[in-house]
């Protein structure tokens, strides 16, 4: 077999074909090589020699998570770990056929991950049974409706009521319903007695220890009474029908009796499971990533809904969507961020106060959603009319036509511009600096003002630029991968 000439294949052939295939190309190649050499000669010795990287290494925590308490930083690591593990799982799952168990597992994992990561980052306060009872009482009733029952008799009375009802139910119903209702009753008893046992002494003065024992005696008596009452009245249809309302009425009545609506007792404040770290102290890479992720994830469904609304045949829906899209697109992002800080509280109920970070998230989300809506609309326009007709001819209703046929194809065709929008909003998170938030760039700017590192501007900016580039480039690659997976090119109409 004859071998092809060396100048046609191999590295030499590649060079010839791609870099020196004409005089013009050859001279361009040489010129570019010269420029690259000039740049490299300046930068590379600087990176490895002159640059003082201590400005980055000693501020690493600040650049990474801002004022997030250092002793809680393990939670950030854990959150990152959760995401990495999930990524590995879905990478493995992507090689399995559809419907495999690992695939379902990874989907479920991703669906609950926002909650897990959110709790890890922000911390968690859990209400106790006592707080629930307290709040229920606060919201359902007013203190002036308190009955004239002496305080020491309230708890026993409540237990007697519950017990009687359980006994009644037990004797009236048979088989499965009896088991379900008695299970519910047991739960209710537990829910009542536990917080009662935990309540501070002075709330229930009539029940000095061992109060639980006394209550149990009351309970037993009530159960028996209820049972015999039910037996003696068995067969009465009216009684049977009044069981459900009686059960529904019981919890509020018990709350009324037990707490006396003494709300705001210190000892029943929610307990902190994970120390609360309010988003206002988040900063650096953490804040940048959280802002970008939240606005990307939240804007996607909103954008799709806006695009659908814009195509709606209902004029009101249509014009609201058009007005929103055009209004948001007609205003610079920075303006929207300011508006979100200043105006958003006007539209929300007084009790609901959003911190600055959430307000910035809302601004970024609405901005991205408006642009996404237009991108998705472009995708809709790329779908041939025949696809609608074929779907309708099969008897699919309009909702199914849109959800199963049109939307999947439309979204698939707009992956590149959609990803472009996501990359752009990721970079635009830097604008939140002007709303007073300390994202990576803002932290970088404050770092270079530290006295000991004065003038070390290049080092800090280079590091942040590399960070932004790595993330943006990863997103672009992911977009290409997604296109390939969904076969955008080969499965075109």
């Amino acid at each position, binding site marked *: 077999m004859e071998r092809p000439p060396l100048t046609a294949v191999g590295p030499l052939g590649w060079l010839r074909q791609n870099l020196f295939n004409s005089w013009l190309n050859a001279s361009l190649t040489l010129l570019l090589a010269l420029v690259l050499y000039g740049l490299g000669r300046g930068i590379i010795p600087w990176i490895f020699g002159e640059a003082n990287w201590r400005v980055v290494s000693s501020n690493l925590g600040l650049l990474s998570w801002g004022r997030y308490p250092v002793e809680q930083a393990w939670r950030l690591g854990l959150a990152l770990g959760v995401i990495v593990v999930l990524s590995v799982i879905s990478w493995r799952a992507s090689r399995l056929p559809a419907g495999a168990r690992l695939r379902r597992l990874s989907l479920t994992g991703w669906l609950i991950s926002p909650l897990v990561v959110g709790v890890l980052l922000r911390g968690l306060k859990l209400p106790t049974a006592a707080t629930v009872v307290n709040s229920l009482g606060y919201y359902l009733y007013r203190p002036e409706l308190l009955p004239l029952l002496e305080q020491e008799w309230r708890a026993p009375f409540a237990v007697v009521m519950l017990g009687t009802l359980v006994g009644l139910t037990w004797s009236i119903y048979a088989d499965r319903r009896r088991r379900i209702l008695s299970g519910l009753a047991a739960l209710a008893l537990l829910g009542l007695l536990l917080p009662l046992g935990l309540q501070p002494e002075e709330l229930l003065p009539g029940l000095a220890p061992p109060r639980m024992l006394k209550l149990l005696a009351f309970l037993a008596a009530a159960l028996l009474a209820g049972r015999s009452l039910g037996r003696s009245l068995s067969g009465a249809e009216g009684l049977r029908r009044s069981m459900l309302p009686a059960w529904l009425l019981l919890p509020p009545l018990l709350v009324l009796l037990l707490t006396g609506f003494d709300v705001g007792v210190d000892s029943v404040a929610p307990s902190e499971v994970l120390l609360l770290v309010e988003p206002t102290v988040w900063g650096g890479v953490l804040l940048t990533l959280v802002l970008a992720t939240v606005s990307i994830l939240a804007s996607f469904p909103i954008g799709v809904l806006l695009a659908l609304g814009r195509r709606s045949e209902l004029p009101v829906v249509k014009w609201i969507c058009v007005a929103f899209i055009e209004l948001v697109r007609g205003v610079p992002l920075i303006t929207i961020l300011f508006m979100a800080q200043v105006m958003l509280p006007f539209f929300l109920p007084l009790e609901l106060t959003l911190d600055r970070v959430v307000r910035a998230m809302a601004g970024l989300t609405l901005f991205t959603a408006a642009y996404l809506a237009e991108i998705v609309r472009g995708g809709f326009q790329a779908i041939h009319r*025949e*696809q609608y*007709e*074929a*779907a*309708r*001819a*099969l*008897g*699919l*209703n309009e909702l*199914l036509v849109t959800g*199963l*046929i049109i939307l*999947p*194809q439309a979204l*698939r065709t707009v992956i590149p511009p959609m990803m472009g929008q996501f990359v752009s909003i990721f970079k635009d998170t830097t604008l939140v600096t002007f709303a007073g938030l300390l994202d990576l760039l803002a932290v970088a700017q404050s770092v270079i003002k530290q006295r000991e590192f004065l003038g070390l501007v290049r080092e800090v900016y280079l590091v942040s630029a590399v960070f932004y580039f790595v993330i943006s480039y990863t997103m672009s690659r992911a977009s290409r991968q997604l296109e390939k997976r*969904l*076969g955008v090119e*080969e*499965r*075109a*109409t």
Partner: protein
Amino acid sequence: MADTIIHCTNVHKWYGHFHALRGIDMDVARGEVIVIFGPSGSGKSTFIRTINRLEEHQRGTIVVDGIELTHDVRNISAVRSEIGMVFQSFNLFPHLTVSQNITLAPIWVRKWPKEKAEEIAQQLLVRVGIPEQSDKYPGHLSGGQQQRVAIARALAMQPKIMLFDEPTSALDPEMIKEVLDVMIGLAKSGMTMLVVTHEMGFARAVADRMYFFDEGLVIESGTPNEIFEQPREDRTKLFLSQILVH
């Protein structure tokens, strides 16, 4: 007619000021195969598209299997799920596999369990002669194979009527036969069919009656024998001589 399944009287349709259908009357009995032919722009496609209401008619009545087509949406989807339609350009869903294309409507409209729908899809693919392609995407199939998948997709809903809108016009000559063979088999199995086509061999083989359309009107109708051997109208003669030359 004894067992009429489609009953059209005086059907009119306008596109803006253009009068596309100018009073079509047609009765189709259960199990009949009707071939509709005529020059382009004669309204034949428009007419069969009014039967599953992809086009709305503006005057006259269309009754399909006892249901009159009106503005009532529930009627329309009920009627559509009883009528299968095969298009000139196949119109398979490119983002779904062959099997998913076929099972989509049975699962979502008929609410069949997935396993049952897939089993029936496989049987239909055997029937149209491409049993081994079920996991491919439409883009990987030839035109003839795509059209046969489209027929299987329409049949999966177990329709009472099948509409064919120029099913072989977009196909390369060597693929026309494989699609026509499937259609002939279907006709012989007793399916009610309305076929817009210029395949006169197909018409001769299985059509019960033929309708010649021109300028939104039925110019002539009759059995294939009457149409081919003794056409009454000059326009029919002229048109037939033009398409039978080839």
